[in-house]
């Protein structure tokens, strides 16, 4: 394992300190317990948005703290959900009296720890709602699994719910918008190489020289199938198929197409993926009206990408377009 780290035990705390120093205009950082908050939080009367999860997916979530998006992000150890204490501390730090929404990715650990934190916050008189993001169509959603995983679609939930909160929507309304995004967003990813968790020092899984994993999770969890490497276009077709089957997109639909890098894939490849994905959608009569391409929900240095499609309507589009000013996503100010 070769990494730009000091003591593997200090990876998260040092990175968060560096993040705070680099973006002091946007965020402030608490180191004990560890969370990242908007520098102007709490904002009186505004619904607070808190997300979090294991580290290693940067810029998710810390890179999305700021005007028009999250009020706080709570990073756990690498690939390990945070404990309730920092979630509670972040929730209290950003509560401006209008309540707080927890945006949680659907992993048992995240759900349980946010649940506990929400209970504790409630006990302290803070109104907390939670939404669970589960956009990964690679996983069968059934009574007999932990349900679908939350992956890159989370970024879109955070942006759009953040815009709703910023314009002054109530906790109920912000929650409803977030739920609407969750119901209309689907993703699926592919890994070409594994990632190495700093404390483990070894690949999270192994792939043969010519193998790829279709339906990979963002923690290196295996997906639907391990297949031989194929041309990019064929891989994109494998990712888009299940997405388009899942929400029956219809001709004339307008969508946001988001190609997300897993961290270690050159940008040039992400655009090759985008090209094919846009082509397939066009063939289906689906119009791409908004786009996002880049490394936004990563798995450390994993090579691979995911494709996310969000069905838009006028309101979601205008919330997407609303100004945002975070370390990783910025426009309009």
């Amino acid at each position: 394992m070769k990494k730009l780290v000091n003591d593997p035990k200090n990876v998260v705390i040092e990175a968060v300190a560096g993040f705070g120093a680099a973006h002091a205009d946007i965020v402030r950082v608490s180191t004990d317990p560890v969370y990242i908050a908007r520098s102007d939080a709490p904002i009186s009367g505004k619904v607070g948005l808190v997300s979090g999860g294991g580290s290693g997916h940067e810029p998710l979530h810390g890179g999305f703290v700021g005007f028009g998006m999250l009020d706080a992000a709570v990073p756990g150890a690498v690939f390990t959900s945070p404990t309730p204490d920092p979630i509670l501390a972040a929730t209290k730090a950003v509560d401006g009296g209008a309540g707080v929404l927890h945006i949680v990715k659907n992993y048992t650990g995240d759900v349980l720890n946010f649940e506990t934190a929400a209970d504790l916050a409630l006990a302290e008189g803070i109104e907390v709602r939670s939404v669970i993001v589960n956009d990964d169509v690679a996983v069968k959603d059934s009574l007999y699994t932990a349900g679908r995983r939350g992956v890159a679609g989370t970024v879109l939930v955070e942006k759009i719910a953040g815009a709703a909160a910023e314009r002054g929507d109530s906790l109920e309304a912000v929650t409803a918008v977030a739920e609407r995004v969750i119901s209309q967003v689907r993703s699926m990813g592919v890994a070409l190489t594994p990632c190495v968790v700093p404390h483990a020092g070894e690949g999270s899984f192994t792939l043969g020289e010519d193998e790829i994993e279709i339906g990979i999770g963002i923690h290196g969890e295996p997906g639907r199938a391990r297949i031989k490497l194929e041309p990019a276009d064929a891989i994109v077709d494998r990712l888009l198929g299940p997405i388009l089957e899942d929400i029956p997109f219809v001709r004339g639909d307008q969508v946001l197409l988001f190609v997300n890098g897993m961290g270690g894939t050159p940008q040039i490849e992400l655009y090759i993926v985008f090209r094919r994905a846009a082509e397939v959608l066009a063939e289906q009569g689906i119009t791409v009206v908004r786009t996002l391409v880049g490394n936004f929900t990563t798995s450390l240095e994993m090579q691979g990408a995911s494709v996310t499609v969000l069905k838009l309507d006028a309101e979601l589009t205008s919330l997407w377009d609303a100004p945002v000013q975070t370390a990783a996503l910025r426009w309009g100010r």
Partner: protein
Amino acid sequence: MNLNATWAKAWIRSSAQVMSQHRVELINLDRDIGDGDHGENMDRGFQAVLLKLDDLPPEASPADVFKLVATTLISTVGGAAGPLYGTAFLKGAAAVAGSAELDGTALVAFLTAARDGVVLRGKAESGDKTMVDAWTPAVDAAEAALAGGAHDRAILSAAAVAAEAGALATEPWIARKGRASYLGERAIGHRDPGAQSSALLLRAAADTAATA
């Protein structure tokens, strides 16, 4: 050793050592069908507990020890295992609140409450390939041993053996809860890491009790 606060502390100290020794093994099990952090999580949590054990007042009861374990695991482990083990110790502590020493009945109550705590939080059933599959056989074996007139240490030993067998038994299964559930058939042939850490924990409990 009687199952008093001294035992409870010795058990937890021994557990910390065991988690540290088995850190890599648990990481590897979790890498196979999860995300490769279970050993790291358990080790981090129990090391944190270790640092706090000495702060307990001398008159602390077993329940006080377990409550300390619960809150420390909840606030340091994270992931799925943190809340689950935390709730187990929290509920277990409540079940034996006030006892200076656990007899067979109290021991079974402790184990039952701990298991119920895991089920309450995680909603897993037997056969879902989770830590429940170590805890439930342990509870069953402990109850049977108690019914059969066994002594506290023998009950604990029966629980440990059953937990180990339970963890082993998860290997051929498909998982229906936790990260391994994403794997479908591919989880087959791998032992559940949480079931394994539970077996290690109960083995440490039994072994500590067995020493003078």
